[in-house]
């Protein structure tokens, strides 16, 4: 088991290096002079040639790309992603709090998504084809097909303005979580409960269920067995759901003025704040790879057959 984990983690390093290099190079390929980009980002009204030359030297842009990449990679291993072009503050001091805020939103949402998906998936699988199954699937289909920004605007209008129950935006009170979390949960739970449901259904048709039933095993116990086996699929799916939500909260954060990664990245992209964009891509790549590995390792722990495959 330890060997398996080690192998999996070892395979990650080259992948992350490639991702980080690509981001660095792609940013470098931008048609504009980075020094000029910095000065534009700082809002300097008139940019002279001397100023560009001075800025280029100050940023170390006059050195070869590979050397700059090497320096950046070494520093970023210690969470030193350089300074933001716009504010001049260390990138981590911007990215850290934003990541934390988005993490809060993501984790609370994920918790609800997992609980809701499993509950709905199990109920629907057991009631397959009945009105409950049909209506849950119908409603979830309707809700997940609504664009997130539209759903969010509707919910803010109804719950915050009309009923005056919740704040429209911000991150001040516990109530602030309700609407953004609800929008995210509606978007994802509607998809993930289907995964549980179909996995349950295929397991219910397995021979071991028939055998168990023939042996007189209680239905309750049988359902628990089926659920445990169905959850194997769910672990991989949910494992990836967390980084997916982490990287796709842009719309929700923008509408709810949530000071997280989405807001930060959009502003950085618009302002061409390359150090922040690079760090963001790297952090997100690490999150994807990490959660994927964790779910693989978890699955391997639950199912010894998987360990031999690598």
């Amino acid at each position: 088991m330890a060997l398996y984990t080690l192998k999996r983690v070892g395979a990650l390093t080259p992948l992350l290096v490639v991702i980080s290099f690509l981001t660095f190079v792609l940013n470098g390929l931008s048609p504009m002079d980075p020094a000029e980009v910095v000065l534009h980002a700082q809002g300097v009204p008139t940019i002279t040639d001397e100023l560009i030359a001075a800025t280029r030297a100050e940023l170390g842009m006059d050195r070869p790309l590979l050397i700059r990449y090497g320096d950046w990679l070494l520093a970023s291993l210690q969470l030193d992603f350089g300074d933001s072009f716009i504010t001049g503050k260390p990138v981590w001091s911007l990215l850290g709090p934003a990541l934390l805020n988005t993490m809060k939103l993501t984790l609370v949402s994920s918790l609800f998504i997992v609980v809701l998906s499993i509950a709905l998936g199990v109920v629907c699988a057991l009631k397959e084809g009945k009105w409950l199954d049909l209506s849950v699937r119908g409603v979830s289909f309707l809700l997940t097909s609504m664009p997130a920004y539209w759903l969010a605007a509707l919910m803010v209008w109804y719950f915050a303005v009309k009923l005056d129950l919740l704040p429209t935006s911000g991150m001040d009170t516990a109530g602030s979580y309700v609407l953004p979390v609800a929008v995210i949960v509606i978007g994802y739970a509607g998809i993930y409960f289907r995964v549980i449901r179909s996995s349950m259904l295929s397991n219910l048709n397995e021979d071991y269920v028939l055998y168990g039933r023939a042996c007189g095993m209680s239905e309750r116990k049988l359902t628990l067995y089926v659920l445990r086996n169905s959850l194997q699929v769910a672990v991989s799916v949910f494992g990836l759901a967390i980084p997916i939500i982490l990287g796709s909260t842009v719309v929700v954060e923008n509408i709810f003025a949530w000071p997280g990664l989405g807001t930060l990245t959009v502003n950085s992209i618009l302002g061409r704040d390359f150090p922040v964009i690079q760090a963001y891509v790297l952090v997100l790549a690490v999150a994807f790879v990490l959660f994927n590995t964790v779910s693989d390792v978890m699955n391997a722990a639950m199912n010894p057959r998987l360990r031999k495959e690598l």
Partner: protein
Amino acid sequence: MRTKKAVILLASILTIVILAGCNGDKVNNGGAGTEAEVRELVYATAKDINDMNPHLYPGSMAAQGILYESLVENTPEGIKPLLAESWEISEDGKTYTFHLRKDVKFHDGEPFNAEAVKLNIDAVQRNASKHAWIKLSTKLAEVSVVDEFTVKLTLTETYYPTLLELSMTRPYVFISPKDFQNGETKDGVTAYHGTGPYILEEHVTEQFATFVANEAYWGGAPTVKKITAKVLPAGETTLLALQKGEVNFVFTDDRGTDSIDVDAMQRLAETGDYQIVRSEPMNTKMIVANSSQASSPVSEKAVREAIWQSIDRETISRTIFSGTETPAETLFSSNVNYADAGLQKREYNPEVAAKLLEEAGWTNADGTEIRSKDGRQLAIKLYYDVNSSSQKTQAELLQSETLKIGMKLELVGEESSAIANRRSIGDYDLLFNQTWGLAYDPQSTITAFTSETAYLHTTSGLPQAQELYGKIEEVMVSTDEETRKGLYKNILTIAHEEAVFIPLTNGSVTVVAPADLQGISFKQTQFELPFERMSFE
């Protein structure tokens, strides 16, 4: 049995969700109740106020404007005293002696005196390369302390806009010398203590910033005791937050955009809770033509005039801007200093435009839709900012109008920084642009005629280019008001006759405020608002 349990589970989850909602509700209502009693202003801003260092450029100008002050103030009646009570200008126009107010303190209690003025201006000058746009930074030779409240500025040459440039939001404003880092401000400051009517109380990045009234303000403590800048990136949320009262003030931001659309503003005003106040014209949106490329059709005056006369400004103002912007007939609106030069208006008239092209030799005798001359098609590229929906719509309107007179307009949308780059290297036919704004017009915009990063390629192809540049140089060092007026009239007439700056509309600042807020007025700049003059009924 099984289903019952599942239903119970489901019901309990729902209960938790609903309870969580109720909990939030109580907390929030408590907050809203106390807010109403204190009557503060909460304004929505699409971007964080950012770094408040007044000697650099990333910060919000509206916020910097209430924290910091300059020596003098630009008003519709001309330059007036602010931190300087009075001043003398030497005969040769090279020495300015300022007598400072004696009752001014920085927010941290430090005294504002000649020494503080010198420290601040010297700190700005040591970072002069970042301030190249403000010509005073290249002409300031020395700042010397005469006595505790008298300070003398010496220039290398006469420069008439000195007082105007000293009145601007940045960089010649004053921060407590205690906030300097190693005697400098260019690498950041430790705190943001100015002399202005408001004090920065708290700033949570990407969430909000609060400003409280400076009770010891030399001009009298402001009536509105607290102002909050709340970050709301999405216009839809801003509108909903206004309806709910979480924010109660919005205004046209630094980049000239309104966060909520005109119809929505109108509906808000109809509820009776809000009022809309609009300023005089603050700047001119325009299309700039490149006169320096002989290969481009727009290097011909007739083509530029034809474009000018095929723009229906009334329709643009009415349908694209819903009346928030007014049609512009000249480079500067008449409320700009020295801009009332009696220039001839060029009407919207496609027939005249077509005739101009015909006379200049651009014909479609062979029956083709697009005119040509010497085997060359009348095809022109117009660059617009992809992030500006109004520029795109205007470009499309213009495209269909010019097609009627046999001109092919190709529209190219790019990022604003890419367009700025095109402007500085001269790689364009036409592009969208705007004047610097009331505080900077006409002097800064006109100085930019000669600047390579701005309008050099726009003006350098004109037959009178050298004459124009000579007059621009002359007007900046002029000391006599009448001479200056005459020179500005000449400069504006050349630019107008040659039709290189094709005006579209005049932009202004729009404010949406609570209906009972009094004293809403504007400054001579679109980037600041005089919050200290406002009060609740």
